């Protein structure tokens, strides 16, 4: 205690809240809000470092604002005129909220229920200590070299500290089993952060079984993990990146539930609904799992007669919406053993499918995988004998707060029950307010990035338990790549800079100007056509040149 060389401030007294205290620092010890500070208390005779988060900073002594009256006259000039010294004049009053000391038995923070006395010296919390106690790593001491731990994901470093000074390694098991939400407005780095997590999960120390539902084709570059040394294990392990393009995405018709079919057919009449569900149930009871529309219609005709008008109308709709859609097939299915495997990340590229089809393939796949996981946990035969983690871009599409989506039911089931069956979901969305609240509130770990929209901020406030006021306040001001990590994977929320990807990022905005100019140059190289346009015959040739 006698050594005050690393002391940055001194406790002045209690703050407004029961867990708050106020301290004072001179200007040269510049402490930002969000910084973690510590002081020592004695708990049952043992000295313990108590951690606290700085939540507010205000100037209590500084040059008066009147000195700023003329923008062309610097305040220090006015100060010099009046003989007021300007070095080290400023004093700051900071507010901090006690997080607690790290209880090595509970491996989380314990509240000392006692504020520091006035005069208590405060230091900046050391890097290694923070790296140990901020994430929920279950360490048995309060200072461990966390880089040596298995199953951790290095996501970035504390934003208030220099780059890579205080690194954050979050436990993969925690967010992969109790679900993850990555929430931010567009362009703030959701896909980037998700890719960082994927990279971490695919490293030899974790070898995850991952599935990415990618409606925009943003994950094309993950394949570059293959051949990179960082991802190779000593035993010859290398991550497998599988791309499933729409050509290979199939839904076997018998996998659809009656609700799904209703969603596919627009507005069937009550009578049609009744006929269809009777026949559908009859088909589902059959031994064969590989029946098609023909068989289904045959069944309806068997029950209702050949000339039933509703059956006729249904036939027309079923053929148009299901039979003529390549996604549905009487026999073919996405083989689960191909898409899930430890050490494999499968990207389902759904960018050319329309929204309904995206929802349907997702619904059916999730149902099948959930069933297999259930079987596995209940010691029945199963195609998936290991935990899996599925990541959803545009999460609000699959679990919408309003409007119907066939996938909502299974998403709710997995987020509420999945942890028991080793099935984790990661929901990525730029509109948290449009995600089903049940689904969102079940996401135990949250990575929130810049969010300006007040509705979306409210959605986070309402569904994310761990997000305190001081954390939510940060969200509008974040820039791309900055994030608040909170929830099950953390002992307390932290503001971080997400690290750089090892693989290139494939989802940036398009270089619009460059593309215009290139397209223009391209056109210029087709002289005959631009000439013929001058004669008013450009229409047909113009279309040609666009191809």
């Amino acid at each position, binding site marked *: 205690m006698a050594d005050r060389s690393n002391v940055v401030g001194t406790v002045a007294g209690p703050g407004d809240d029961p867990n708050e205290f106020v301290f004072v620092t001179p200007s040269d010890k510049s402490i930002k809000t969000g910084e973690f500070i510590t002081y020592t208390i004695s708990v049952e005779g043992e000295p313990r470092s108590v951690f606290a988060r700085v939540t507010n900073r205000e100037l209590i002594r500084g040059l008066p604002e*009147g000195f700023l*009256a003329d923008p062309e*006259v610097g305040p220090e*000039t006015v100060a010099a005129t009046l003989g007021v010294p300007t070095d080290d004049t400023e004093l700051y009053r900071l507010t901090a909220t006690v997080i607690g000391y790290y209880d090595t038995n509970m491996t989380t923070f314990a509240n000392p229920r006692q504020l520091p006395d006035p005069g208590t010296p405060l230091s900046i919390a050391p890097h290694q200590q923070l790296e140990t106690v901020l994430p929920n790593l279950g360490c048995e001491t309060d200072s461990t070299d966390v880089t040596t731990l298995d199953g951790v994901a290095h996501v970035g470093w504390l934003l208030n500290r220099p780059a890579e000074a205080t690194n954050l390694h979050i436990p993969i098991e925690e967010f992969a089993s109790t679900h993850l939400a990555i929430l931010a407005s567009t362009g703030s780095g959701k896909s980037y952060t998700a890719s960082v997590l994927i990279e971490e999960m695919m490293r030899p120390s974790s070898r995850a079984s991952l599935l990415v539902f990618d409606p925009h084709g943003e994950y094309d570059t993950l394949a570059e993990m293959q051949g990179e040394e960082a991802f190779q294990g000593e035993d010859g392990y290398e991550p497998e990146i599988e791309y499933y393009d729409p050509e290979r995405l199939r839904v076997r018709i018998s996998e659809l539930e009656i609700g799904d079919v209703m969603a596919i057919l627009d507005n069937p009449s009550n009578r049609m609904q009744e006929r269809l569900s009777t026949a559908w149930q009859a088909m589902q009871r059959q031994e064969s799992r590989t029946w098609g529309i023909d068989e289904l219609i045959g069944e309806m005709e068997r029950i209702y007669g050949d000339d039933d008008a509703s059956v006729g109308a249904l036939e027309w709709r079923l053929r148009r919406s299901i039979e003529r859609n390549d996604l549905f097939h009487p026999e073919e299915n996405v083989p689960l053993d191909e898409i899930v495997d430890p050490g494999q990340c499968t990207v389902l590229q759904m960018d050319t499918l329309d929204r309904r089809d995206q929802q349907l393939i997702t619904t059916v796949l999730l149902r099948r995988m959930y069933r297999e996981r259930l079987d596995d946990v209940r010691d029945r035969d199963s195609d998936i004998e290991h935990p899996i983690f599925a990541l959803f871009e545009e999460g609000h599409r699959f679990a919408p707060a309003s409007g119907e989506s066939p996938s909502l039911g299974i998403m709710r089931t997995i987020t509420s029950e999945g942890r028991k069956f080793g099935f984790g979901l990661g929901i990525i969305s730029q509109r948290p307010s449009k995600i089903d609240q049940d689904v969102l509130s079940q996401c135990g770990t949250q990575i929130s990035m810049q969010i300006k929209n007040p509705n979306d901020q409210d959605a986070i406030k309402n569904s994310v338990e761990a997000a305190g006021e001081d954390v939510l306040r940060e969200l509008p001001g974040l820039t791309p790549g900055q994030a608040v990590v909170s929830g099950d994977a953390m002992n307390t929320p932290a503001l971080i800079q997400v690290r750089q990807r090892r693989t290139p990022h494939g989802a940036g905005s398009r270089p619009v100007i460059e593309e215009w100019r290139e397209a223009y140059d391209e056109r210029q190289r087709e002289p005959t056509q631009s000439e013929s346009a001058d004669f008013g015959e450009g229409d047909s040739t113009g279309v040609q040149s666009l191809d």
Partner: protein
Amino acid sequence: MTDTPPDGDSPDLDSCVRIGSIVSSNSHLDYVVEVYKERDCDRPPELHEREFGQPVFIKKTVNGTEHAVIGVIYDTQLVDPDQGRTGPRLAQDDQAQFTPGYIEERTTLAGVALLGTAEIAEDGTIQEPTHQMPRWTLEVEDTVFHCPDQVTVSFHTVDEQIQLAYMDRLLDIAGDLGSEVIVALIDRLRGVLPEDDPNHRVLDVVEQNVQWQAREQRGVV
């Protein structure tokens, strides 16, 4: 009177108008000066030479070096010894009044607050001005001189920049009229500085601040 050239032309401290002499003090930095009249010297100060906000100086030789202790008139007071003593007159008007042992006449007293010191050079100009609190005590009967505007500017110029570093002390001594003295000093400096001098803008900010604070204290804003 021809030996006193108009203000500004000569910063020569030897030929400055005498304003008065010290009669008492209220504190180390706060002196009372009795203003000279016709009878006291050849050339008593004219009204504008001893006005409110007029800088003054007192010469002091310390350790063989001649110094000017600079001050400013921050208050004045009239003293009429007869006031209050003349009750209802019983005697006739032309009858001479008899006031035994009391021959003092009406006088003007000026309050002078000390601002700082400077050395007086051989050529009569001042050097090394400082706005630190003067440590030397003045004496009763010390002569107080009118400070020419050029000397005032020299005293206020430190490293090319105008300074009023005594301001907090002056505000303290001058009390109610503190902001007015400072504004008067600033006005005086402004009048002497060249028009394009960058210090003008700084002085504006200082003046605004002082006036604003005064208004706040007086409950105007």
